[in-house]
């Protein structure tokens, strides 16, 4: 089953990002929300994406902009909260890594 992993904290301060990346399977998606947007350049995330290039990674553009976070890496897909609702129904289940 394809899972949506919602990351809401910075991986520099919390182990939630690392735990998520240990659990993520190639068919899954990752969504960076709230302080999760601070992970856009996190080495752990970028390393995982190199190993599992099939992963889809989304971030809430409003949350990233508010925090002056951005990425030039076009693997990251900027979305709105309305699109998050769609993502929830496209995936079989979700875990929130706060």
């Amino acid at each position, binding site marked *: 089953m394809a899972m949506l992993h919602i990351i*809401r904290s910075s991986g520099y301060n919390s182990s939630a990002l690392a735990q998520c990346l240990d659990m993520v399977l190639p068919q899954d998606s990752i969504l960076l929300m709230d302080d999760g947007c601070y992970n856009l350049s996190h080495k752990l995330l970028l390393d995982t994406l190199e190993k599992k290039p099939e992963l889809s990674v989304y971030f809430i553009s409003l*949350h990233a902009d508010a925090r002056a976070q951005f990425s030039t890496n076009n693997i990251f897909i900027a979305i709105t*909260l*309305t699109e*998050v*609702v769609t993502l*929830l129904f496209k995936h079989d289940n*979700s875990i929130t890594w*706060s």
Partner: protein
Amino acid sequence: MQNTLALVVTTQPNSNLTTTAINLVRAAVESGVSVIGVFFYQDGVLNAAKHLSIPSDEYQTLKQWQQLNREYGVPLYLCITAAEKRGLSDELNNLELSSIDPVFTVSGLGELVELTSKAERVVQL
């Protein structure tokens, strides 16, 4: 058929994480999803505190929940055990004595079981 969604909120009312939950509920309702309930658990129960006083130039979390309940009919369920542990009490016979805002339905973990089983998707925020 309309998609159904339930949410579990565990974050405090003075956290911007709760604002995200509120905005997600609104986005869901506005895109035609039926939000069958929001369940408040852990520190999330503090969202129901009616005496919470947030400076008027800051984000008014409680007003937003009231609006979601009144305008969109989103049911708000409170885990009373978790609430009482955090200083909230309901006085069913005397609204003035209750410290819980009346838009919240006092319930227990059984309600979480119901929502989990009924909703097509559940998201914890």
